[in-house]
């Protein structure tokens, strides 16, 4: 992330920018070599001239990291009057484009770190909600491009005001940050009454998840009106993003829960190797991949639905999050034979127990000496496999987590499961119900302690804002 909110020339900060703490606030036009700044003035956040908001800046940087900037009306998005800034060039490799047909952070090759937060909206004013989404859009665009938030960033504001940006991502590259937004059932209805004039707009697929056997959900880790998934290769970049979005939202939203994750447990691209979960097994071998557009259309991307009121979700997806505590210590006392039997794969290579190598398709029919299948009936691989679930697949994007210890000397650790599906009614609930009932792994070694389901709208076009279609 840039140390200077007003851009860095590639030659000046080839490796992601240099913080200039204490440097006087300078307008972008004064930054030598800054390509094509648009807004002439950098106003202070408190009463300066209203220039083009940085939050309102829709720069091509989001598309490719080049410095060219497309300006929009001044003050369009935010109370902050700010200067237009383009992202540094030279950060292209660590920048994932924010704008696009789909939201980033779904089929983007899974980054290594996660910070996810679910918010409750604490106001009932539709205009305030829309303004927040616009502010978030601008901040998200800036941060994913490796810039700071706010009019004056972390260090270039008035001496007697708290800085706009919290600053812990200064000097860090964009880190492939993606910010993915979704709406929970609570945004549409509260106590049975519609909110924000969204009558009829809640998609039918945005159900209230049923109670699954064994669920031990904690209210403080469950639900939420809006979710933000921040993924990055650097944990500090992801934390910075959620922290600044939370800050922008104070007074309108309140963090309901948040979760840090490390160690992606899924591969969403064939370019990635398969990572391991905390049970030590490769996870995500058979995941849907970005390279399979036809399968993504079939299983991940939502359609316009059957009612006009839900058509805004076309091209979006549904995000299921489940905080799955693993009984790590008990697992570690389990024999290798049982571990492999529970999973249905070998621990070393990740090959299905029916034979072959990691990517060999499992053969659920092949039987061993006792007439029992080599891949046990109650194994995780079998129960989760498309063949056992009416052919449905999902795009998983989970992360390992550990939240310290539980006070009994056991790790509070597990898998923060995230999946993107076309329709949770067909693509998540039946599978999870089967797993919760029959998967021995789930019964003896897992405990679901948090849950969320969110409608993830399609991508944002330059000039638009998150979930614009919902409010159209």
């Amino acid at each position, binding site marked *: 992330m840039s140390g200077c909110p007003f851009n860095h020339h590639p030659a000046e900060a080839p490796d992601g920018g240099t913080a200039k703490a204490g440097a006087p606030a300078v307008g972008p036009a004064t930054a030598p070599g800054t390509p094509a700044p648009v807004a002439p003035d950098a106003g202070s956040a408190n009463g300066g001239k209203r220039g083009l908001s940085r939050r309102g800046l829709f720069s091509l940087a989001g598309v490719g990291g080049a410095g060219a900037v497309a300006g929009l009306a001044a003050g369009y998005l935010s109370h902050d009057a700010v200067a237009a800034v383009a992202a540094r060039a030279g950060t292209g490799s660590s920048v994932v484009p924010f704008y696009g047909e789909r939201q980033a952070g779904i089929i983007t090759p899974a980054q290594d770190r996660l910070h996810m937060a679910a918010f409750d909206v604490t106001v009932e004013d539709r205009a305030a909600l829309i303004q927040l989404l616009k502010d978030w859009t601008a901040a998200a665009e800036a941060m994913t491009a490796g810039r700071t938030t706010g009019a004056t960033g972390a260090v270039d504001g008035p001496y007697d005001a708290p800085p706009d940006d919290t600053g812990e991502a200064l000097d860090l590259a964009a880190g492939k940050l993606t910010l993915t937004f979704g709406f929970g059932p609570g945004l549409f209805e509260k106590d049975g009454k519609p909110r924000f004039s969204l009558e009829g707009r809640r998609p039918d697929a945005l159900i209230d998840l*049923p*109670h*699954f*056997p*064994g*669920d*031990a959900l904690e209210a403080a880790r469950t639900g939420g009106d809006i979710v933000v998934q921040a993924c990055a290769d650097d944990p500090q970049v992801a934390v910075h993003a959620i922290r600044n979005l939370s800050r922008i939202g104070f007074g309108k939203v309140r963090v309901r829960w948040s979760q840090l994750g490390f160690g992606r447990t899924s591969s969403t691209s064939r370019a990635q190797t398969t990572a391991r979960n905390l049970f030590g097994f490769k996870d995500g071998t058979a995941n849907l991949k970005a390279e399979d557009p036809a399968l993504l259309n079939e299983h991940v991307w939502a359609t316009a639905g059957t009612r006009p009121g839900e058509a805004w979700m076309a091209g979006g997806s549904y995000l299921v999050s489940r905080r799955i505590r693993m*009984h790590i*210590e*008990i697992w570690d*006392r*389990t*024999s*290798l034979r*049982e571990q492999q039997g529970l999973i249905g794969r*070998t621990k070393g290579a990740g*090959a*299905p*127990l*029916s*034979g*072959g*190598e990691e990517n*060999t398709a499992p053969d659920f029919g*092949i039987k*061993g*000496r006792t007439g029992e299948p*080599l891949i046990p009936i109650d194994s995780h691989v079998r129960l989760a496999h498309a063949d056992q679930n009416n052919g449905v697949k999902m795009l998983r994007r989970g992360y390992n987590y550990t939240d310290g210890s539980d*006070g*009994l*000397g*056991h790790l509070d650790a597990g898998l923060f499961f995230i999946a993107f599906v076309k329709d949770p009614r067909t693509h998540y609930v039946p599978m999870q*119900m089967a797993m*919760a*009932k029959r998967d021995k792994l789930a019964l*003896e070694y897992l405990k679901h302690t948090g849950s969320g389901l969110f409608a993830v709208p399609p991508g944002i076009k330059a000039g638009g804002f998150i979930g614009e279609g919902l409010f159209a």
Partner: protein
Amino acid sequence: MPGTPLPKMTLPKMTSRRRKSLALVAAAAAVPLVLTGCTDNTKTPGSSASAGPIQVTSNKTECKVSIGSVPSGNLSFAVKNEGTEITEFYLLAEDGLRIVGEVENIGPGLTRNLVVTAPAGKYTTACKPGMQGDGIRAALEVTDSGNKTGVDADFQKLVDTGVQQYTAYVRDQTEQLVTGTKAFADAYAAGDATKARELYAATRMHWERIEPVAESFGDLDPKLDAREADLEPGQEWTGWHRAEKDLFPPAGYTALTATERAKIATQLVSDTEELGKRTRTVVLPADKLGNGAKELLDEVARGKVTGEEEIWSHTDLWDFQANVDGARIAFENLKPALAQKDPALATSLDEKFAALQAELKKYAKGDGFAYYNELGPAEVQQLAALVDALGEPLSKLTSAVVL
């Protein structure tokens, strides 16, 4: 060298099985016989850890064993299936009949390890591609490494005796469970809540002592022991915890009617009788005992030590004690055999069972225990620490006896 910590203790974990090599076993040959009762020398100082196990490759027509002669002790085979069918590997005694060790169900392309303890003698190796016929056989000579195996001919007899004793214990507990359940059900159905509450935890102890066996009947377990959180939408809730909620009602709870109570009680008795019937024919090999003991401790660590099992009655300590009882009996039944194979593990388990039992005893009250919600955080932590201290070595019991 009495009192020497025996390296065997670490063997069953098998995490370092790749290092448990021919070279190690060979190196052991040079080590004087110092560890009586110990057959494994993987931790012998100066031994090399670089070589791997005996390589076996199996395909449709061949069963290649990388070496024809090995020193006695723990032998580790890495069996790779290079064929297209499921294969198996056997280590047979000289007569070609008695199975010393086997690894079944190796899928095509997979490698599986077999670790066995083998005294000096002549052996036969066999791969069985397709799991058919006599297999492809070859001779394997195990030379005297100088280390006694430490296991005498009566070992199998000790195991068998232990298994018989435990099987009898399971039956006895089941019978007591059936009798106790009837008394509980009668009191509950009759609306004698005081008596039913008194009988609740004590009767459940018979269930908790044999929980892994009872749980092996996948249809009966949820009918008898499902907690409310375990239910799926629409599923009928029966069994002990249904009655528990009714007998120890949370605030705002609507009590069951007499008819509903009677129905729960009748079902509880009939499911328990069915359990008793099935338990009479259950077969419990030694590995089931060892794993069952471990699973009982897992039960404690997962649900009892957290107070989740008896969420309304708070009688978790009764269950806790019963799980520990069940685990201890299984261990004690296997102890004579274990003492031959791994006396240090036997001693360690003795100590840890005793420590946990002593801690549990602190909470004894009359015929029962304190309610779990009466314990403070430090007390729960201490119990949890002792459960972990016991659980870790207990998880090594099965492989120590079965290997």
